[in-house]
């Protein structure tokens, strides 16, 4: 599968923001980023068993002077909620890129509840939320989110709309 250009641009935005640790729970929408992170000598990609591990990983990275990002799907947002008290309470940066499910053309009803609640849940937990709908805006949005997170030291999520990523096709 050929990756769309915006996915490489997002990787470049993270690289330019000096992100060194990339925690992820695999998602098809992040597959290009994950591949690039593994191939980048200046980055350490960390596969997680569950998304909240990535919140703690990012906090540890920050304690040691490195910047981290968490890549996850909207279903993973729910797993992170209590762990988000860590960056919020400690005034640490936190940056996550969230591929959305349960919205544009969703085939699987099990994805709909958490997909629909992810944005509000993040806000309720104290996370600033940006949402990208079109390829042209994604890389700038990730770059701006990284500045907000790492310079203003707040938790920030960039939601990548399902329309942007493309609905998962189960039935041809």
């Amino acid at each position, binding site marked *: 599968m050929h990756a769309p250009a915006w996915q490489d641009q997002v990787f470049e935005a993270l690289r330019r923001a000096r992100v060194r640790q990339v925690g992820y729970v695999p998602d098809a929408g992040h597959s290009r980023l994950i591949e690039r992170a593994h191939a980048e000598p200046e980055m350490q990609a*960390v596969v997680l068993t569950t998304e909240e591990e*990535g*919140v703690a990983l990012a906090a540890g990275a920050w304690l*040691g*002077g490195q910047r981290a990002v968490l890549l996850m799907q909207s279903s993973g947002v729910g797993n992170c909620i209590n762990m988000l008290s860590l960056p919020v309470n*400690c*005034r640490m940066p936190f940056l996550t890129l969230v591929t959305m499910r349960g919205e544009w053309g969703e085939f699987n009803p099990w994805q709909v509840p958490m997909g629909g609640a992810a944005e509000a849940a993040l806000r309720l937990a104290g996370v600033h939320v940006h949402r990208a709908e079109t390829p042209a805006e994604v890389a700038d949005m990730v770059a701006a989110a990284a500045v907000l997170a790492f310079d203003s030291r707040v938790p920030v999520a960039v939601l990548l709309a399902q329309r942007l990523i493309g609905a998962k096709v189960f039935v041809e």
Partner: protein
Amino acid sequence: MSGTLDRRAVVAALLRDPGDLLVVTGLGSTTYDAGAAGDRAENFYLWGAMGAAAMMGLGLALARPERRVLVLTGDGEMLMGLGALASIGALRPANLAIAVMDNGRYGETGSQRSHTDLGTDLAAVAAACGWAATAVIGDMAGVEALRPRLRREALFAVVRISAAEVPRALPPRDGALLQHRFRASLGIAET
């Protein structure tokens, strides 16, 4: 599973002459134990975010490969973040060690029995997740021998401590203060 060792004596022994050891403690009694052993900027105490300690240790160890990182936590806190043993086992950083103070109890909430008292063997779990070195310690001679190993090896250790309650010893709990002084101790410039 609980043992006979006094947790304060164990943690005081493990943290004696800490040098430049970086320490992350888990929510609950290990935070108090480390505070009682001597508060220092290189200790980061979790007072919440239960299950975070091991993964914080991983992020820190990856960021600072030239330094030793010790995660000191309890059996309940480790159980809540059990997947971290697999995530760390997948990378096996050489500079990270974990020591679990195992009393087989949730001591903060009324001493309910934990899974380690009901059959879970944390050292076996860690080994099954790819940790090359694991240890189970039941006496103070073992604790003394463990101290240098925790500062040298990628080791997962379980120390069987008594479930007896000890007096509270409360280290700082302001998360912003803890992260700022920790980073300052590493010479990280705040721009």
